[in-house]
């Protein structure tokens, strides 16, 4: 599997890193201090962000972004290979985030078998 599929990004859960491979997992590699700082960042995010309203305060978003960049740097310093994704800053609704799926082609594939 491609280790670059490991992402550090807010994902609404208790830990903001998606491990595609492992063990060892990212939290096994990094220092306890960095793990704690990431957890604090994630808990802050969970507290100040909701999926339907966004951040409750612009200052919260500012802190999240600044801390995110710092944590990205710290992760790299500790040898973690990962992909950044700060999707929460995208104000623009992405109507077509990926090339359009072709519904007819998709339907045809369904008809001839999965």
């Amino acid at each position, binding site marked *: 599997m491609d280790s670059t599929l490991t992402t550090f990004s807010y994902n609404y859960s*208790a830990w903001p890193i998606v491990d595609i491979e492992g063990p060892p997992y990212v939290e096994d590699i990094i220092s306890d201090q960095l793990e704690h700082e990431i957890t604090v960042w994630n808990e802050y995010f969970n507290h100040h962000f909701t999926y339907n309203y966004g951040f409750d305060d612009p200052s919260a978003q500012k802190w999240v972004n600044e801390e995110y960049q710092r944590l990205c740097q710290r992760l790299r310093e500790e040898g973690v290979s990962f992909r950044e994704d700060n*999707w929460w800053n995208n104000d623009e609704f992405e109507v077509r985030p990926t090339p359009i799926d*072709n519904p007819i082609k998709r339907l045809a594939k369904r008809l001839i078998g999965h």
Partner: protein
Amino acid sequence: MKPSAKGNSWVRKVAVIGIVASALVPTNNANADSSPKAATGEWYAYMPLAHTWYPKTPTNASSPTASPSPGSAGRLLDPITIGACDIGLHGTLVASFLSKYDGRVSLKCGSTDVGYIHIRTKHQSQWDAFAAGNGYWDDFMLWSAESIVLHPESSHLDSDMKRCYTAPVKTYFKKDGINHLLKSFSPTVIVSTNNRVMITAYPSKTSRCR
């Protein structure tokens, strides 16, 4: 900052046109077009707690770890519904399914922040990594999500009314009657409990609920 309801009338008016037009646009997304692998064996995924299979119950089904259960196979997402998501009808219902703790849960097209579009934008490549080209990533994702929320191994309710569900999923390759374990992972599914919508679902090697 949030993209509010942008189901503007002009969007709705071009919905049908957009769906038809999208059918004429050749996709250059290899992931979206992933075809079943040509293989002499049989790939499938199994959710032990739900006793469900994906994409279908394998021939001479026997659970890799226990006696077989009739189980159920994954259902397939409606291409037209996905087309509606493509053209921005973010309130469109993609699927709904029962959960263990939150009743019937809806997956809507959503936006980059939530729902099907969020999952596709942020986690499609990760789902693809586990589906390994067997069918569509989103059919696999939906099968996993609905199996997990109905038969979770664990769940956790946050103070902000989000519930995290997780359960193990295993993928196998069956050849010459022998099941070979390929991958074992624990997807995470997040549900908003106050309005019963699925916020996100992503695969991860280990459980990410608390």
